[in-house]
């Protein structure tokens, strides 16, 4: 089924390349950006009690709309399932897919997509009860492991345990609530595997005491999450990529939502270029010179977006870890905006 869909989508890729250069015009003519998000993934894109979307993926769409249209509110959110997200992008139903999507080679090529800056580095990991006194996934021997069916998690776990030559027994459950129940309440499994951001989120919201569970240091897969757009529209692709980089650069240079206007008088030539004081970058992208300024004023810099949606003070309680800036021990890095 997956292969069939991929082939089918690939065959439409040629045809959608004809749309090159049109996305920006379309967005400007429509006066709003149509942004594909998830149906509800806490911290990334989820509706609150009044139906207002919030999360990292949502904030990126607001930033993009602020950069292109000068108004962060001009976004229409379209919830997409994991199955229909790529079709929706290919058929032009959405301008951009900002939906915890992993950047992979086949998606970049055969599916006819392009990817923006990686805005979240995730990876599959293991969580165990602290009372087991396990400090490394390599110590797991014959453990019962809870995982969600229909994800790549199952395969990754099998590969990992084959590589360390130890047995394990999988307990695969489709419904995530049932899965959580199996691990946190009924103790049907000793180990819970999944993307570490998800594990941390469930731990902080479901465990009686957060310290009763530890997430082991090994990551057995790479899941760099990035916004996706249609292949072939280079100009729009550049914009998506550089709005992401601008948010990262802003954190590096200490530009925040609050001080963005004051920073315009900064002596730093990079800051001046980024905020449009010394013109050029906006023109190069085909946008207003205030593009990055508007984006930062709308949602803050990368660090602010992270802390607001998934950071230590939120119910998800994630540490920056691999998602810290490159000069603070993480992987978040933006090429120079000049």
């Amino acid at each position, binding site marked *: 089924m997956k292969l069939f869909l991929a082939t089918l989508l690939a065959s439409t890729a040629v045809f959608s390349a004809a749309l090159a250069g049109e996305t920006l015009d379309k967005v400007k003519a429509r006066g709003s950006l149509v942004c594909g998000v998830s149906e509800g*993934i806490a911290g990334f894109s989820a509706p609150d009690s009044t139906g207002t979307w919030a999360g990292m993926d949502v904030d990126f769409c607001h930033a993009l709309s602020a950069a292109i249209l000068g108004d962060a509110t001009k976004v229409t959110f*379209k919830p997409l399932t994991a199955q229909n997200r790529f*079709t929706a992008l290919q058929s032009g*139903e959405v301008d951009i897919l900002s939906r915890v999507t992993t950047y992979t080679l086949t998606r970049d090529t055969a599916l006819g997509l392009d990817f923006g800056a990686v805005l979240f580095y995730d990876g599959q990991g293991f969580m165990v009860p602290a009372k087991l006194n396990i400090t490394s996934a390599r110590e797991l021997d014959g453990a019962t492991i809870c995982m969600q069916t229909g994800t790549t998690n199952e395969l990754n776990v099998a590969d990992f345990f084959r590589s360390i030559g130890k047995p394990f027994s999988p307990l695969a459950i489709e419904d995530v*609530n049932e899965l959580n129940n199996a691990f946190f309440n009924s103790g049907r499994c000793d180990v819970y595997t999944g993307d570490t951001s998800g594990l941390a989120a469930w731990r902080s919201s479901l465990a009686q005491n957060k310290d009763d569970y530890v997430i082991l240091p090994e990551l057995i897969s790479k899941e760099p999450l990035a916004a996706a757009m249609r292949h072939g529209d280079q100009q729009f692709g550049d914009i998506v990529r550089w709005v992401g980089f601008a948010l990262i650069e802003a954190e590096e240079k200490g530009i925040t939502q609050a001080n963005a206007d004051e920073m315009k008088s900064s002596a730093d030539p990079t800051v001046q270029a980024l905020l449009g004081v010394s013109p050029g970058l906006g023109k190069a992208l085909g946008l207003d010179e205030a593009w990055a300024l508007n984006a930062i004023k709308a949602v803050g810099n990368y660090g602010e977006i992270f802390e607001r949606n998934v950071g230590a003070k939120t119910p998800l309680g994630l540490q920056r870890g691999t998602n810290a800036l490159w000069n603070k021990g993480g992987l978040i890095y933006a090429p120079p905006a000049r």
Partner: protein
Amino acid sequence: MTGMLRPSRRRSADFLRSLFSTWYNALITLALLFVAFKAVPPLANWLVFDAVWSSPSADACRLAAGACWAFIREKARFILFGLYPYGEQWRPLLAVLLLVGLVLVSANKRCWTPWLLAVWPAVIAAVLVVMAGGFAGMAAVPTAQWGGLPLTLLLAVVGSAFAFPLGILLALGRTSGMPLIRSVCVGYIEFVRGVPLITVLFMASVMLPLFMPAGVEIDAVLRALVGMTLFVAAYFAEVIRGGLLAVPKGQFEAVHALGLGYWAGMRLVVLPQVLRISVPPLTNTLIGLIKDSSLVAIIGLVDLLGASKRSLSDPEWLGFYREAYVFVALIYFAICFSVSRYSRRVEADLSARQKH
């Protein structure tokens, strides 16, 4: 008064005796009493006594052992109306009232007049207009933001409204003497009945856009509505065909003897009898349709069940899925149980009439 009480008292005595009439009945009764004794107190504690009824945040709920009804309080509007703009939610409320009113009026036998046929399209149009807006100061709300109970009811009511005439035509076609029409109808009905609804919806949502020219998009709600209508029509057709077969041959012969044409005979003599017979199985199919409408969640629509699932992803309120599902189950139960009770009444009516 005492005369009226006696039979019921005897019935309850009979009932008690039947519980312990034989050794195995007694055993089953005792076993069930034991299960109830074990299960009811914790359930009652969870549902009522340990429950948190109101709290501004999830913290109080996390400490409590019982249900978190504060979650339902917080999320009720989201579950009922989905992503519809918060300030405009009187409109979906009005739409729900209109649809429920329409169904109630249609259920009343005194209202079964030709007028009703005109009322249906008018009310459905009014519902769509109120939901969509875009005039008289009402902001336009695209269908992508429709959700919750109005969407579920809309799919069920409008779906059955279109499927019903289509089903009649298909049933007539299937029993028709013309081979071409008959084979087309048989082919359609059997094909649709051979495919799960989820496949039809999946085709409509994932495959259809790929065959469309670039930029042309068919509204997702419309896609689901058309898919469900075409699907249910096939089931309605089979129910109505059953009704057609149950009408005595003499009736058809009488139509011919009166010199009525095919359509006139069908309309005046045969179909009224068919529909009366078919009400119970039609309501059955309708209940199925109401519950199946939750499958639209897989094509990204936020129906009642979908909205309750999405309410679970708010980071401030993670993990209260039991409460959400109990709440939604109660709503579905209220709808389906009333439809089923109504069908029972019609059935009783019908058999009473046949006795005369």
